[in-house]
């Protein structure tokens, strides 16, 4: 972010960067930066709070009054995430056709996921698979959790991207299951610690680590914020 700001400033634009990681903005030292201690992924702080967002922007633009740089100012309001506080919400009835429990759970979540699409019109599912393919992908992760090699289960693409599609699917379904819009990482925490889908990927992740699979393919199956040690026995 800081380096990119400097590239654009060199090209003749005045730039103001919002910052989310102070250590990096200190090192890259762009001309003007407003450091905001907000949840990572929410650089304007609060979704659907226009006045809050506007205040962040106008505070950032006030840095243009400084005569020289680098300028680095801390925004006076901080917002914490909830990585360790799982969302509390009902999980809809699972599919009853007899497939593995995680896949059946995901099938039961499809209506909630579709309601989120109808209400908000945005999804981050689709790196490799669609929402409708998520149950099939959980079948594959369940096979790894049961001891099969990840290379033999037939993933249609990079397993880290497929795991991201699954996580994003659950989080987007949770938006429609919760009483209020989830704060940052609450749905993530719910997915990993409260759902069969999340527990299946966590178990597969540990199995792949124990099998000395390439670091990239097991480490990035879940966010670093949810790399809890789990009992795989």
């Amino acid at each position, binding site marked *: 972010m800081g*380096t990119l700001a400097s590239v654009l400033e060199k090209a003749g634009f005045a730039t103001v960067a919002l910052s989310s990681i*102070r250590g990096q903005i200190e090192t890259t030292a762009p001309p003007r930066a407003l450091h905001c201690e907000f949840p990572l992924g929410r650089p304007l702080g609060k*979704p659907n709070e226009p006045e809050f967002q506007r205040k962040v922007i106008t505070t950032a633009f006030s840095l243009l009054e400084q005569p020289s740089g680098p300028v680095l100012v801390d925004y006076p309001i901080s917002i914490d995430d909830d990585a360790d506080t799982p969302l509390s919400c009902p999980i809809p009835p699972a599919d009853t056709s007899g497939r593995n429990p995680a896949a059946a759970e995901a099938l039961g979540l499809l209506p909630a996921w579709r309601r989120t699409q109808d209400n908000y019109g945005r999804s981050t*599912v689709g790196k490799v698979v669609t929402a409708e393919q998520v149950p099939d992908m959980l079948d594959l992760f369940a096979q790894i959790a049961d001891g099969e090699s990840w290379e033999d289960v037939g993933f249609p693409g990079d397993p880290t991207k497929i795991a991201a599609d699954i996580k994003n699917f659950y989080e987007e379904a949770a938006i429609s299951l919760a009483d209020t819009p989830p704060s940052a990482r609450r749905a993530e925490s719910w997915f990993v610690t409260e759902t069969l889908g999340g527990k299946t990927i966590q178990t597969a992740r540990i199995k792949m680590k124990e099998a000395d699979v390439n670091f990239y393919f097991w480490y990035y199956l879940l966010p670093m914020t949810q790399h809890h040690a789990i009992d795989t026995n």
Partner: protein
Amino acid sequence: MSDEQLRTTLGGLKSFTFDDVPWTTPKPLHESRVAIVTTAGLRVESNADWNAGDQGFTQIPHDAENLTLAHYSPNFDRVGWVLDKNVVFPIDRLHELAEDGIIGSVAKTHVSFMGAQPDHTLETIRLDSGPAAAKLLTDDEVDLVLLTPV
């Protein structure tokens, strides 16, 4: 682990530092044409994939409706984006500031790169894609860039 701990870990990673801090004297804010440059890995089509290490960029029209956040990293919240695109890409806030006369105008062209790049030298961004994106913004007569990180 919380974002606070993640910040400590990520804040210690190597970064590229220019020898000098570049400086462009800003125009008055109420006369400035403003563009957003984000590192959220936004795409205007429904492709939700952006490979780690890809230092390219996408062009985001100011009135694009079907934006997708395609960033490769799992290490940040995406729910906020689904709830409100402005928490990442505050285009509606810029239009309001223009209507209120606080900024001059909103660019027609905005830009997305992707953050969390494994190559900390960002050589491609510095020498190729960054200047190419700047050319697009120059063609749109942009004066001021607001950068939002993901």
